């Protein structure tokens, strides 16, 4: 089922066009990977999906991005609500300088002023979803920065889940993690896929091949090819895709 429909999206930083005529469907309860060389526009594209680029001066989008049929660029779209529905996890874990508990409770407190009892249950549920509960249940008051990097990234994911999003955007979520922590995040993504629409930007093509259902290849701001991951990594249709994934271009 289509969760997001991107239609003829153009994106500009000032006069510079960085995305050109991007159209693609993104299905619910699937993992969609976006690959391409640095500067190809894949992270910019990811950030358009919850309008994170709005904060950049001179940034401008044309076209439509429909979330469950509703254009996220419409004047009636409440951006805070949009970002609650479309959460994001970044390249490096970025926990707030607060306790483990407060990090996860941050969003629900801000967005809907959750009551203490409900909040405790929500924090536990979120930490359980990312497989962190058993590791931190006795240290909920501990400074989040004392966790390992892998734990911090899962904490950030729990923080995202705590506001009960529908879509999770991940911008190279494992680039700062060691191989084991990377595999934990990947395993987690596969579990979360049962409940969420996930879009991941990654430079690690093996990771894209391992975790995603569909893959889009970006090149110079254009979506060159978008297909089932298995097809992209075994017999892509476009020669440029082939050259990129075999390491001969990019």
């Amino acid at each position, binding site marked *: 089922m289509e969760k997001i429909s991107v239609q003829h999206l153009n994106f500009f930083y000032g006069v510079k066009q960085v995305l050109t005529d991007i159209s693609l469907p993104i299905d619910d309860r699937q993992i969609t990977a976006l690959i391409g060389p640095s500067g190809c526009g894949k992270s910019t594209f990811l950030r358009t999906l919850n309008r994170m680029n709005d904060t950049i001066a001179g940034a401008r989008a044309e076209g439509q991005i429909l979330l469950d049929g509703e254009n996220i660029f419409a004047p009636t779209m409440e951006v805070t609500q949009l970002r609650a529905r479309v959460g994001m996890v970044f390249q490096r874990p970025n926990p707030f300088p607060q306790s483990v508990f407060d990090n996860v409770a941050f969003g629900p407190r801000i967005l809907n002023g959750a009551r203490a009892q409900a909040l405790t249950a929500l924090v536990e549920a979120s930490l359980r979803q990312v497989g962190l509960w058993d590791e931190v249940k006795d240290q909920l008051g501990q400074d989040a920065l004392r966790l390992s990097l892998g734990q911090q990234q899962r904490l950030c994911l729990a923080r995202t889940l705590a506001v009960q999003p529908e879509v999770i955007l991940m911008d190279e979520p494992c680039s700062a993690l060691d191989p084991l922590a990377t595999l934990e995040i990947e395993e987690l993504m596969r579990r979360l896929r049962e409940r969420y629409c996930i879009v991941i930007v990654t430079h690690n*093509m*093996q990771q894209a*091949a391992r975790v995603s259902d569909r893959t889009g290849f970006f090149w110079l701001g254009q979506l060159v090819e978008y297909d089932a991951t298995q097809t992209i*990594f*075994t*017999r*892509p249709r476009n020669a440029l*895709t*082939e050259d990129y*994934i*075999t*390491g*001969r271009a990019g």
Partner: protein
Amino acid sequence: MPRDLFERELEQLQNEMLTMAHAVENALTDAVAMLAQRDMEGARALIARDRAINQQRFDLEAQCLVVVATQQPMASDLRIVAAILFNVNELERIGDYAKGIAKINLRIPPEPLLQPLADLPRMAEITRAMLHSALDAFVRRDVALARAIPRQDDAVDALFEKVNQDLLQLIIADSRVTAQANLLMWAAHNLERAADRVTNLCERAIFTVTGEFVEMDADEPGQTD
């Protein structure tokens, strides 16, 4: 080029596969020539040569796994490595058919053959040429050539049928020749099977280029199903 080392490793894999294929081609024609000449010593040496072919298969498999583990090939690169893994197994089996013919040579008592072997060497030559072309198609990524090769299997099948009929006639005429005739039938069978396996190599040559698994029916040349 960012993948110079990988390109060299792929080329080396292909070259070593061709070296193995060359040994297998020679084994096929040598085994039949030795049978025709009743060269028992040569047959024993050929059986020993097969051990080297088997070792080449294991070495190439190991090298393919190293390339997969260290270079993580994708798309057409992955198909090439996968095809080499498959091909060396097929080549090893074709080598076994040659060894089988050498063993048949040793099982036939030191006596003249029932009739001059004209058709078995012809079968071996056609199979050798098919094998050579199949590897050529693989290395040159020539789909048209790979599709054309299995048609030659018709000639091998026809010769196999003729050899069987001729030997059956000899058995009917004189049942005392049954043992040798039966062994010669098995030698022909080995060659027929070797040619069939060349068809599998052709399928992999096509797969390497197109990414599609195409079954080429050796009995219906040029057909796919």
